[in-house]
Structure formats: structure tokens, C-alpha cells
């Protein structure tokens, strides 16, 4: 599969696309070039549409060309020999790899933000709904460990349906594993900032993401513990639309901030400037703005 490559950041191959996009939230129709120029933010309802990992990395770093991906070769095994009616887990993974040009549901690496190197983990929702299996957990754990070894702050961007059922209890244990790695980073006084993008659900919400020092929600993102199928089975009621959006979760006291996409890089840089140890910054490359912080 031919992909464009820029310093480890991968983009999908150019394919013909429609000139109009439909907002996933409000159904509004938008002219694609304008929608893309607005960073995929709906002008009608402010929903922040999903970005793939490459787009996200480009959005967050000073220069995505400087992103050095790590652990790109880690991919899912099939510990249970799992089959769904629709096919085997092995096939699902193979399809996801083909679709996203990624080996797993997260892309990890190091890159500069406000002139400071940060450890960045961005979930790839297109890879089996961003679900967390063993390999996903392995990569997240390695990211925290890498940051700990090198004294780097960590930024994670979540977009996930939760634990990957196809790996059974192995998937559940990734919650404990990644959370333990995050907790160990915290003991060393290194900050972890989590950006919860649409959607952040279940086993990802309830693990490394929720124990971040600062949690930023993307406008309109669905953030919740229990999937709607589970809840409707239990409660026999539909949640109102505004429940479980980032704005709602902020009012419930669970998020620090909801930040518009256009301000996200600036906000993250500023927050990390406040929390990260001073010596972790690479002074030669500190921008004027970051130096003030």
C-alpha cells in the first residue's frame, strides 16, 4: 500500500473525495475545502470532527516533520484465537492495518511542542474503533516508560471505543497496565496531559486517560464510561444528546478544560510549560512565546 511519508508521520494516499461533508453530530452539509480549512470543526454546531493520527500530530506539534515515531512495529497478536460471526480477529486486524496504514490503534513518538520535546501518543480511531488490545497497551506503556527514562512530559490523545473484546481479559488488563505506567510517571513529577477527543469511552476513559494531571476535552466529544448499548439494556432509557459531551462532563467536574481545536497546541504548550521540570526543555529551541511561560 503506497503511503506518503513525512518524518514518520503517515497520511492516507490521495483518493477522490466528495466535495461535501455531512456533520456527524448535527447533519449539516459543509463544503469540504472550507471544512478542512476550519480544522474539521462544524461551523453550525461546533462539533470537532474526528482526525486521524497524522492529522492530529500535524495539529499538535511545532513541526510534524520532526516527529520521530517509536514502536511502529508493534501489532496485535491473537491470544484467544477469537472469531466473530463476521470473521476472525486476525482478519479484523489485517483489515485495520490496510485501512489505516498503522499496525495498531495508537501512534506514539517524540516531537517538539513549544520547542520542548514531548512524548506523544495519539489514538487512531480508524483502527478497530481505537479499541485497546494488548499491543495498544504495550505501546502506551512503552510511551510512558520512554518519557520516564528521558524526563519528558506526556501528551495522549484518546479516541476509542474502549477495551478490545476480541482479546478477552488480556484487553481488560491493559487498563491496569497503562494506568500503572501513568502512575509511575506521576511519581517522578512528570506531567501527563490527556486530550479526550471524540469518542472516548469505557476502558480508555477509565484508565490512563482519567488519571492524567490535566484533562482537556474537545468540543462536542462524547466522553463516557458505559457504552449506550450497555446502558439502554440496563436502564431502558436514552440519554439526552447533551449528556456525555465534553461540555457536560466539564460541568460534572471531570475535565480541566474544553479547548477549541484552533487553540489546542497553544494551550498544551502553555500548560506543559507550567508543569514540566525546567531542565526538560531544550533551551536552544525554546520559542519567544514558550520562554515567557
Amino acid at each position, binding site marked *: *500500500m503506497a503511503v506518503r511519508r513525512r518524518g514518520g508521520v503517515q497520511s492516507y494516499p490521495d483518493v477522490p473525495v466528495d466535495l461535501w461533508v455531512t456533520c456527524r453530530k448535527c447533519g449539516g452539509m459543509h463544503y469540504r475545502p472550507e471544512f478542512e480549512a476550519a480544522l474539521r470543526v462544524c461551523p453550525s454546531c461546533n462539533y470537532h470532527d474526528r482526525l486521524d493520527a497524522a492529522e492530529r500530530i500535524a495539529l499538535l506539534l511545532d513541526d510534524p516533520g520532526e516527529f520521530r515515531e517509536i514502536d511502529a*512495529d*508493534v*501489532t*496485535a*497478536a491473537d*491470544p*484467544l484465537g*477469537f472469531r*466473530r*460471526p463476521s470473521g476472525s480477529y486476525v482478519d479484523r486486524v489485517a483489515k485495520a*492495518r*490496510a485501512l*489505516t*496504514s498503522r*499496525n495498531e490503534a495508537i501512534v506514539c513518538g517524540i516531537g517538539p511542542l513549544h520547542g520542548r520535546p514531548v512524548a506523544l501518543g495519539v489514538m487512531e480511531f480508524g483502527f478497530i474503533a481505537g479499541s485497546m488490545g*494488548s*499491543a495498544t497497551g*504495550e505501546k502506551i*506503556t512503552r510511551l510512558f516508560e520512554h518519557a520516564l527514562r528521558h524526563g519528558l512530559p506526556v501528551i495522549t490523545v484518546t479516541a476509542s471505543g474502549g*477495551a478490545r*473484546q476480541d*482479546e*478477552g*481479559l*488480556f*484487553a*481488560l*488488563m*491493559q*487498563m*491496569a497496565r497503562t*494506568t*500503572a505506567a501513568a*502512575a*509511575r510517571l*506521576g*511519581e517522578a513529577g512528570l506531567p501527563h496531559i490527556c486530550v479526550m477527543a471524540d469518542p472516548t469511552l*469505557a*476502558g480508555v*476513559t*477509565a*484508565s490512563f*486517560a*482519567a*488519571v492524567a494531571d490535566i484533562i482537556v476535552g474537545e468540543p462536542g466529544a462524547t466522553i*463516557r*464510561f*458505559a457504552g449506550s*448499548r*450497555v*446502558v439502554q*439494556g*440496563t*436502564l431502558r432509557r436514552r*440519554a439526552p444528546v447533551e*449528556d*456525555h459531551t465534553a461540555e457536560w462532563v466539564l460541568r*460534572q467536574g*471531570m475535565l480541566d478544560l474544553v479547548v477549541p481545536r484552533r487553540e489546542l497546541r497553544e494551550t498544551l504548550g502553555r500548560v506543559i510549560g507550567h508543569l514540566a521540570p525546567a531542565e526538560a526543555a531544550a533551551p536552544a529551541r525554546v520559542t519567544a512565546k514558550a520562554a515567557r511561560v
Partner: protein
Amino acid sequence: MLEFERDLDELREHIAELERDAGADPNSQVARELAVLQLELETRTADIFAHLTPWQRVQLARHAQRPHTQDYLDRLCSDFTELHGDRRFADDPSVIAGLATFEGRSVIVVGHQKGRSTAENVERNFGMAHPEGFRKALRLFDMAERFGRPVLTFLDTPGASPTLDDEKRGQSWAIAENMARLARLRVPVIVTVIGEGGSGGALALGVGDRVLMLEHAIYSVASPEAAAAIIWRSSDHAEEAAAALGLTAPDLLRAGLIDRVVPEPEGGAHRDFDSAAANLRAELARMLEELCAQNVDDLINARYAKFRAMGEHQQAPAV
């Protein structure tokens, strides 16, 4: 009464009837018949329990008469002082926690608590903890560390309570904070799955130096019904899901995700609470002894390494 238990139970009733009639003579016709029936009961029980399907284990793990956390505490601890409340929002009866003496040692115990009657199950939310239940546990974990007392946890929940109110009070946050705290707690922690180990709600009490499972307990990424709803788009496929998820104690021991299977008495823990507890006591006592002898830094490093190793992945060329 479970389906596969029913004919065993008919046999048991028949034996009990004959016993009443048998009288004292060991050579009577009735006595000989009894001996045969008892052998048959043993053989059939052994046969059924040697070939339990995952779904049958799910049913056993959820058995209404199965011993719950309080039943084990009554048998394992010479005194249990229950402590209440999260000091934030409420006391959640679906988690019980407190101080206890186990094998001469002061310990902190924390467990999910299901009810037995309908009223008690409503009160205890069927063992589905609210955020405040997990936060009560968190408070006790902190207490354990402050006073250097080991922690024993008991897992028995269909899952964390998933209502809108639970979301409002940060169910995900409560679970994650507990895992983070347990992962770094500077005292020994032993986890036992005694019944249903359901998803994140179980794992919130499930990060420890050792993880034990009762023989017929289950431990799963999602309840078979939920997994079926996700995978097969219908919870009618729960039995298939149970088989596919590898949620039984022997499965998980083989997978290296738990440390030990604690044998249950013949017919399951619900047939004999005392021997179930005795088997568990033996394992817990041995492990606790071993863990308490360890240096605390070694202990939490080993705990980190233990969960660090849980998962199977492979290498592939970058796509």
C-alpha cells in the same frame, strides 16, 4: 438451582429419603441401595464438574447461594469492623470495607458485596459499585498505606454501575484512580476473584501482588451478555460469548493472567461455604506471609512488572 445441578439434587433428595428409612442395619437392602446411590452421586458430580462448560461456570459464579464477600470475611477473619463512607458523597453498600484480623495480622479488607434476597440486592445494587463505593475503597487503601497494613480484596460484581448518575459522579475517574493507587500502594495487596469478576468494576479492586480465583469464578473484559451484544449484536449469544472470552479460572491461569486457582468443594462453593473459605485461607495465609517478608520497593516493582507483562503482541514491519 442451576439446570445442570437439578438431577444431582434429585439424586441427593432420594438419598436423604432412603437415609431416613434405612435404620441402623448396615446390611439391609436399603443400606446397600444407599451406598450405590451415593457412589453414583459422587461419580456424576465429579463428571459434571470435570466437564463444566464456560457458560456453566458463569452460572455457578453467579449462583444466588454462592458465598459473597461477607461470607468469606465471617470465616476468614476473627473480627471484622466495617468502615463506611467515602467522606465525599455517600456510603455505598455495594462495596464493603474495613479492618480485620487475618491469621493474627491486622489487614484492610475491601470487596464487592452482592445481596442474597431481592431487597438486599436492590440495597446493594446487585454488587455494582457506584463511584462512591470505589472511593470508599480508595480511602481504605490510603489508610492501609498510612498504617502499613496489607490489603485483601474480594471481587464479585457484574460490573460497575453504569447509570447516568454514575457517569455524573465520574465512574471512569473513580475506577482509574483506584487502579493507579493500587498499582503504587506501598503495602502487600492480594486480590481474590470469588464470583463474578466483571470488567472495569472488578479491576478497580483488582490490581495487586497476587491474583487468585476461586475454581468456578469468572473474570471477563465484559459480561458475556454485554460482549454478545457488542459482538453478535444480541445478548442471546451470551453462551457463545462466554466460551469465546476465555473467562474461566483454568483458562486465565493458562493465560498467565492470574496466579492461582483455589479449589472449591465438590459441587461448588455454595454447597459448603466453610471448606471454600478454608481452601482460600490456606492460599491467602501462605501468600501474605511471603509478601509481608518483602522489601516494599521490591514489592511494588514486582507488582509493576507483573501487570507490565500482561498482554500478547507481535512485531510487524511498519505498514
